[in-house]
C-alpha cells in the first residue's frame, strides 16, 4: 500500500467508529423526541384547521368593511413583519437553512422586520443585520402556549399602531417523517374574499363587531403561532433523524471501505516481509 500505513488506517477507523456511535445516539434521541412531537402535532392540527376555517368563515360572511385587522392602518411604504421559526441546534440536515433561506429571499429588497424564534433564526438574522422585532425567543423548544399568545398580543398591538402593514409567518410544515416543507403564510391583514356578496349572511356579533375582532384576532394569531410551532418541532426532529440516519450509514460505508484498505495494507506488509526473507536466504 503506497502512502498510507496500516496504523494510520487503523486510527481513522477508530475515529470513524466513535463518530458513528455519536450519530447513532443522536438518531435515537431524535426518533424518540419525534414520536412525542408527532403526537403533539396530530393533536394540535384540528385546532389549527378549525381555528383557521372559523376565521375564514367569519371574514367571508362579514359585510362590514371598517373592522380592525381587515386592512392595514399604515400609510406610506409597505413594511412586512416576518415571524420565522427555526431550530436551536444544527445537525438537522437542511431543516434550518431551508426555512431561513426561503424567508430571507422573500424579504430581500422589501422593508421587513423579523421576529426570530429559535437560536439559529436569531443568529442568522443578526448576522445579516435585519431589523428585529424582539430577541426574547431564542429557544424554540422552550416557547409555551402562553408565550405564543403574548407574542400574538404584542404583534397585534404593533399592527394596530401601524408599525407594519402585513404579518407573515415562516415555518416548516411537517408532511411526513421523510418530507418537511418550508412555507410562508400571510396572517394579517385578513383577506376579504371576493365572493363577499352572494355567500354573505349577516353575523351577530356579541358585543360589538369591532370589539369582537379586537379580542378574537390576537387569539387567532396565537393559536396559529402555536400550531406552526408544533409543526416546526416535529419537522426539526424528523429532519434530524433522517440526517443522522444517513450519517450513520455513511460512517458504516466508510468503515467497510477502510477495513478493506487496512486488510490490504496488512497483507502487503506480510507479503513484503516474506519476499525479503526469501530473497535474503
Amino acid at each position, binding site marked *: 500500500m503506497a502512502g498510507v500505513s496500516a496504523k494510520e488506517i487503523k486510527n481513522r477507523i477508530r475515529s470513524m467508529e466513535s463518530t458513528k456511535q455519536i450519530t447513532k445516539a443522536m438518531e435515537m434521541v431524535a426518533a424518540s423526541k419525534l414520536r412525542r412531537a408527532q403526537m403533539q402535532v396530530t393533536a394540535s392540527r384540528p*385546532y389549527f384547521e378549525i381555528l383557521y376555517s372559523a376565521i375564514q*368563515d367569519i371574514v367571508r360572511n362579514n359585510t362590514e368593511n371598517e373592522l380592525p385587522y381587515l386592512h392595514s392602518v399604515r400609510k406610506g411604504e409597505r413594511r412586512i413583519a416576518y415571524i420565522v421559526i427555526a431550530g436551536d441546534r444544527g445537525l438537522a440536515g437542511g431543516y434550518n437553512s431551508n426555512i431561513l433561506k426561503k424567508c430571507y429571499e422573500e424579504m430581500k429588497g422589501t422593508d421587513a422586520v423579523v421576529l426570530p424564534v429559535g437560536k439559529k433564526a436569531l443568529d442568522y438574522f443578526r448576522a445579516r443585520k435585519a431589523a428585529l422585532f424582539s430577541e426574547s425567543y431564542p429557544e424554540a423548544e422552550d416557547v409555551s402556549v402562553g408565550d405564543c399568545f403574548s407574542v400574538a398580543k404584542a404583534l397585534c398591538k404593533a399592527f394596530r399602531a401601524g408599525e407594519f402593514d402585513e404579518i407573515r409567518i415562516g415555518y416548516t410544515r411537517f408532511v411526513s417523517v421523510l418530507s418537511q416543507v418550508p412555507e410562508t403564510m400571510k396572517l394579517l391583514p385578513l383577506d376579504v374574499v371576493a365572493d363577499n356578496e352572494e355567500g354573505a349572511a349577516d353575523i351577530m356579533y356579541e358585543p360589538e363587531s369591532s370589539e369582537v375582532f379586537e379580542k378574537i384576532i390576537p387569539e387567532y394569531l396565537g393559536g396559529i403561532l402555536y400550531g406552526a410551532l408544533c409543526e416546526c418541532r416535529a419537522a426539526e426532529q424528523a429532519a434530524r433523524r433522517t440526517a443522522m440516519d444517513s450519517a450513520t450509514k455513511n460512517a458504516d460505508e466508510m468503515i467497510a471501505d477502510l477495513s478493506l484498505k487496512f486488510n490490504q495494507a496488512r497483507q502487503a506488509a506480510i507479503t513484503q516481509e516474506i519476499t525479503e526473507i526469501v530473497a535474503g536466504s
Partner: protein
Amino acid sequence: MTTFPLKIVTPDGLQFDGQAEELIVRTTSGDIGVMAGHINCVAPLGMGRATIVTEGKKLYAACIGGILSVVNGEVKLVPTTFEWADQIDKDRADRSEQKAKNALADKNLSRMELEMAEAKLKRALVRKSVADMMLNR
C-alpha cells in the same frame, strides 16, 4: 330534540366532535346559549363554565379564553383551555389559587403582574367551581 354539529378544539386536541342539543358558554359579555337553528354569531369567550347537552346528558367543563363561532348552523368552540369537569386537577387549582392570592397580597405589584395574578386567581376559581359542581350532583 333537534341537534346541531358541535366541534370543540383546543391546542391539546379535539375535545368534542359530534351532535349536541344545547351549548351554554360564558362569553366576555355574559352567558350565551346556543341551540339548533341559531343565527350566525361570533363572540370572544370569557372565563367560565361551559354546559353541553348531548344525548340528554349534561356535560360540564371549565372553558377559558378563545372564540365561539356559529356559521350556517355549524358551531365551533375554540377555547384556549377546556377541561371536562371530571378531568380537572382540583389540587392544582387549589395551589394556584393560593399562589395568586399570595401574589395579590403584595401591594407593590406592577400593572402587568397584577393582571396576571388576577387572571390566575379567576382561572383557579372557575376550575374549582366546575369541579365542585361535579361532586355535588
